[in-house]
């Protein structure tokens, strides 16, 4: 094997951040190389240099022994480098073939787009690489997994033999992930392609890669043969200290029902039905996890329960009170707290300080108000510092603007506020999205603490592992309907995957 790509002392400095710090790395021809690291470790920056989006501030890059002088995506494509971004860059109303040909369209008489030829070329490509997809289907009608194939085909159409995949499995079901890995293995084996995969899911690294590079705070911490390491070792390399993925101690028996949803119908922002007849109940002292691929009604369901979205039909009961059609404030008063899916738009006031964000919801409490209206700033600040310490929020102190904090710390502010209400019901959505591994542990421990203290917790997460780790029971949602309900320890991820795509057979106990 020869060196396909060689980074030599590459540094990339943005105003305020050293995103890549003196990185030297060789990637060999015909291997699957995994690049792992937490958010902000500099993985994407490094790959953007390879793909020509960023020009490094120092160091040099060699592709097949040739020094790269011109950094642009166009030049990178000409060198045979293709990149599939996390968010697909496809035109929804175009067909698969049109999307693939876009940018290098076959022409009829030099002017007109030759659709037939585009489809023929696409079909040839599909046969050559074994990536099954219908060339004449419109992209908006095909699944996310297939859309990803279209993205891969697009790079192949442009003659790529080095393929960069940025977090390719984030939107896929376990089955789709397996299929993707099958494709990767095949193109590497049969076409001698080089594949670089950016991820932070460690079991995927173990499953697919030949070698793995770990990045932390802009530096390359180490490069290992995948067969020489395990997940635990990689995790501690990523975080910089040993990470304890210990079993979470779940104690106590479930108590009375605290959330009850009967035959709920909710529409999404476009007015189309998103939740179609969902019924569920959560007892105190248990976690009910929702497993669903994004966009199958789980967001709308949680918003309807917490009063953030209009209910078209059905009934929601919180702690024995009718919460149907009530405002978020009224439902909170019944004993519900809510960690929202999108913390930036719903969970915080970005331009306000940490103090103010922690106070929200308690601003009317007697201890913070003199004569019932004058805000006692010193008491407020004392209260905020206590929570700040208790929830291990790290940043420049309680006066920091929340919008300037990292995702993990911002989430800690949200969780600190919501958990401090000590309500019997918690609705939690995406607790660790964009949060690094170290903080993930912290949130998981806190959630289980709440469960053991007798809270009824309804959890939704795009991270299937998280759902498995935290839940007592799991329901699967597909196109707004419950397709199955399971005890978390009585089912595997693969089985759940079938129900998430609506192909599971019947519901188990």
């Amino acid at each position, binding site marked *: 094997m020869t060196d396909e790509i060689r980074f030599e002392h590459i540094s990339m400095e943005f*105003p305020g951040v050293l995103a890549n710090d003196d990185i030297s790395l060789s990637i060999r021809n015909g291997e699957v190389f995994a690049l792992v690291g937490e958010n902000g470790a500099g993985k994407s920056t490094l790959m953007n240099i390879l793909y020509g989006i960023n020009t490094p501030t120092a160091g040099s890059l060699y592709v097949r022994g040739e020094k790269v002088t011109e950094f642009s995506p166009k030049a990178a494509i000409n060198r045979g480098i293709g990149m599939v971004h996390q968010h697909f860059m496809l035109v929804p109303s175009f067909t698969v073939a049109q999307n693939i040909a876009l940018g290098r369209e076959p022409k009829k008489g030099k002017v007109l787009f030759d659709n037939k030829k585009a489809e023929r070329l696409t079909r040839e490509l599909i046969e050559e690489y074994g990536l099954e997809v219908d060339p004449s289907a419109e992209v908006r009608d095909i699944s996310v997994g297939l859309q990803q194939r279209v993205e891969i085909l697009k790079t192949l159409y442009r003659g790529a033999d080095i393929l960069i995949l940025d977090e390719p499995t984030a939107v896929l079901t376990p089955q789709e992930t397996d299929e993707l890995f099958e494709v990767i293995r095949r193109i590497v084996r049969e076409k001698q392609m080089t594949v670089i995969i950016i991820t932070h899911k460690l079991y995927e690294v173990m499953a697919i890669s030949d070698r793995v590079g770990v990045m932390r705070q802009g530096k390359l911490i180490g490069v290992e043969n995948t067969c020489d390491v395990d997940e635990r070792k990689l995790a501690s390399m990523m975080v910089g200290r040993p990470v304890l993925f210990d079993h979470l101690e779940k104690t106590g028996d479930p108590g009375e029902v605290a959330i009850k949803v009967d035959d709920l119908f909710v529409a999404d922002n476009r007015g189309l039905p998103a939740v179609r007849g969902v019924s569920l109940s959560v007892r105190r002292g248990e976690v009910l996890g929702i497993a669903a691929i994004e966009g199958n009604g789980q967001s709308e369901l949680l918003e309807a329960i917490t009063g953030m979205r209009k209910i078209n039909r059905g009934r929601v009961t919180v702690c024995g009170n009718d919460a149907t059609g009530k405002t978020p404030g009224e439902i*909170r008063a019944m004993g519900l707290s809510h960690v929202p899916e999108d913390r930036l738009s*719903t969970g915080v006031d970005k331009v306000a300080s940490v103090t103010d964000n922690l106070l929200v919801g308690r601003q009317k409490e007697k201890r913070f108000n003199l004569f019932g209206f004058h805000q006692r700033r010193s008491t407020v600040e004392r209260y905020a510092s206590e929570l700040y310490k208790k929830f291990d929020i790290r940043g420049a102190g309680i*006066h920091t603007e929340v919008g300037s904090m990292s995702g993990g710390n911002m989430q800690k502010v949200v969780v600190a506020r919501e958990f401090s209400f000590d309500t019997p019901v918690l609705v939690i959505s995406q607790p660790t999205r964009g949060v690094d591994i170290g903080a993930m542990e912290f949130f998981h421990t806190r959630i289980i603490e709440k469960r053991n203290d007798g809270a009824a917790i309804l959890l939704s997460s795009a991270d299937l592992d998280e759902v498995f780790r935290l839940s007592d029971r799991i329901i699967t949602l597909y196109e707004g309907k419950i397709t199955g309900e399971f005890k978390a320890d009585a089912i595997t991820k693969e089985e759940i995957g079938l129900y998430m795509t609506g192909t599971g057979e019947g519901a188990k106990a």
Partner: protein
Amino acid sequence: MKQAFAWIRRRLNLSYIVAVIISIFVALLIDAIILVAAGHNPIAAYRGLIVYPFSSLRHFGDMLEYAMVLCLCGLACVVGSRVGIFNVGGEGQLLLGGLVAAYVGSQMSGMSMWLVIPCAALAAMATGGLYAFIPGILKVKLKVNEVITTIMLNSVAALICSFFSSSVWKNMSQNEGIDVKEFRFATLIRGSKLSTAIFASALVTFFVWYILQKTSKGFEMRLIGDNPRFARFAGLKTDRIVIIAMIVSGMMCGLVGMFRVYGAEYAFISSKVSNEYYFEGLMVAMIAQYQPVPTIIISIIFAILKSGARGMQNAGVTIQIYWVMQATVIFCMAAQTGIRASIQKARQRRAAERDVAARREGGVANE
């Protein structure tokens, strides 16, 4: 000591103050070029501008009265924008408030001033508040853009005012207008427009500042303005608070109208009661980034600029050149956000450079 410094920095937004000063300075520099090009001596012109409002008590009084109007109008805008609603209709609320106040006065002829003035003030506030309630409720219930409705309602108000003051409610013999000479705030400086209304204004100003900055209601208002979805999520009654803020904003504008009638003009004559004063107050609020204390200070700066026009004319500068000047000053002050952003960026960059240098020396810091 260090703590005290940090406290001051937190309280006084230094980058903002520096940016405003720079922007005024830049504007004066540009204007100096214009003045020279037009054949004037810029130093003499500026001297006239600055000195005039302080050259006599009368000028000083007029300047303060104007500052008072700008300040109240600016704060009315601040109250709305604090909850995320932009009241551009203050001009109409002001005029209608003044009209109704004048009408009340003209109908209560012969009664005690101690009865008439409060009645007129209440009537003006009720009118202004009601007139602001219309776009407020439309915004909250039907999501109708308040900028458009308030602007349109300004024209409606102006026409209503000229109709009533020139025909139905007119009580002046020659011109259009409603005369209320009988009742007035006591004049503080003879010959100027400064009256005891300024004490009432100071009280209102203090009240607004206190509620916005120091109370839990003000806290809730700010949350709604910053992120309405988050405020709703946190359980606030956002719709109600937005409507109330809009009504209060309108009440303040109505009160300004009443102050103008009973404190300065002693009659309701549309063109004299307000000459787009609310829009200048709006500008003040924008430059002050909708913060109460800067609004007060910038109102005074604006008032000096405006009343200094006469001083510049005395120095031989034509009024058109003065208008150009005023526009450049406003333009530069409005651009101060840009100046401020660049100040902050430079500061961040310096901090980052230090950070990067420290990391290079110490290797990757372990947490």
